[in-house]
């Protein structure tokens, strides 16, 4: 009985793994159900944990409160003078802006979220956030922090979502070294399986690349919008006229120490149908269209 049960369970798990390893953009139902169920445990524990932490921080701060108070009194006097100056500058700024007709625009809407759970396995670094489909979160929406892009939404339940980092191996995205439009150092960035480190491939060897250059997304691939910061170049193995550079990027945004992230409510433009189909499917579609035209 036991060996048979073992075989059935191992086979079932292997099939599940093989199905999950497929590189498609769909989310798995089991993940969504588990996310929804886990929310009832993770949220209260996270809030209780942060409350306890805040209490101890508050106690620690009390000790230095008296000396800090004296310093702050002096600081207030200095700041009052500065505020007066700033008020005058703000009036002047407003007047100049109206003259130049400048408008402040936010390109994408942003939804802030709290990290309520981290990957239970030591081998991966996914996280769970407290925003779900009720808040308007959709699959593959980009996750950013002030340092730049960190990942995307990989599973959405009504109350919470799972996010995966761009350092994960499955992820691969179009990137450019330098500003979009002013550089032609295009390539593909993918995870290295190392925390906070990415690899950029296919950048032509004749393009000048230096350590410290900033890498941004290009928007190719249809998941991330263009212009999001990915990180700084940490190491370059210089290529040649026929060999591309091998570039290693240090991610500027770190998720491991963060409690809050922002979700870009960005929906990529729909892809043309023929991109998803085989080349001969395009021909069939064209033939079908031509046939209908001839019948008309």
């Amino acid at each position: 009985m036991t060996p048979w049960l073992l075989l059935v369970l191992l086979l079932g798990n292997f099939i599940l793994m093989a199905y999950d390893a497929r590189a498609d953009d769909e989310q798995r139902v089991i993940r969504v159900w588990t996310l929804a169920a886990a929310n009832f445990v993770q949220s209260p524990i996270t809030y209780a944990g942060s409350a306890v932490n805040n209490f101890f921080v508050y106690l620690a701060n009390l000790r230095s409160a008296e000396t800090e108070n004296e310093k702050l009194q002096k600081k207030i006097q200095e700041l009052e003078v500065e505020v007066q100056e700033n008020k005058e500058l703000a009036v002047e700024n407003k007047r100049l802006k109206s003259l130049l007709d400048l408008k402040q625009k936010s390109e994408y809407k942003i939804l802030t979220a709290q990290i309520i759970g981290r990957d239970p396995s030591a081998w991966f670094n996914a996280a769970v956030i407290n925003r779900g489909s009720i808040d308007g979160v959709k699959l593959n929406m980009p996750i950013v922090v002030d340092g730049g892009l960190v990942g995307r939404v990989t599973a959405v339940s009504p109350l919470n979502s799972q996010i995966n980092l761009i350092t994960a191996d499955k992820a691969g995205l179009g990137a450019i070294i330098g500003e979009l439009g002013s550089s032609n150092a295009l390539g593909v960035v993918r995870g290295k399986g190392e925390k906070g480190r990415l690899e950029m491939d296919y950048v032509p060897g004749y393009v000048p690349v230096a350590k410290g250059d900033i890498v941004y997304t290009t928007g190719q691939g249809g998941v991330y919008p263009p212009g999001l910061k990915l990180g700084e170049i940490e190491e370059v193995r210089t290529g040649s006229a026929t060999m591309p550079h091998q570039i290693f990027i240090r991610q500027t945004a770190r998720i491991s120490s963060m409690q809050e992230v922002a979700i870009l409510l960005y929906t990529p433009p729909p892809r043309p149908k023929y991109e998803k189909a085989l080349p001969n499917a395009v021909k069939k579609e064209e033939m079908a269209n031509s046939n209908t035209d001839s019948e008309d």
Partner: protein
Amino acid sequence: MEQLKITIALIIAILLQLTLRNVAEPLTYIDFPLIIVVYAALQRNSIKALLFATIAGIAVDAMSGGLLGSNAFSKTLVAFVVSEIARRVYLDNLLLRIPVIAGACLLDDLIYYGMHRLLGQDPLGSLFITMAYTLVGTTIAGTFIYLFLDSFSSETLKRRKRDFFAPRRETRRRNPIRLGRKP
């Protein structure tokens, strides 16, 4: 009673695994479900251990960035190996259980890592460093958890020890052959 105790322990272990990393990062190196799965396997009930391993593994996988079913696969295999060893070797002593949990942890990590590599996934970090940390964390935590769990069933353990050793003593007492004496 024993069944209920292990089931409750498994549920708590899964919940701890899902929540503790957010409280403190190093706690991720303790594999709580594995500790309970090995404990269940040491009770010499293979079927229960296998089912526990699969359920715990899938629950953890669903919340992880890894492949669905990978934890379940490795833990099921570990549960089978441990339960087979426990059927043949006396492992009710806590000191003997320490190498068992350590070995189970190593085997679990190797299978987990190997299955991901086999299916084209690259887990984060170095294999040896992560394995070493997990080995230390899980073995230490496992020892204390086993002490705690055993404290709930000391009567069962005493009865089992009595049953295990009783027939041998009885045979010796009734043996008519005595050394140095003629029958």
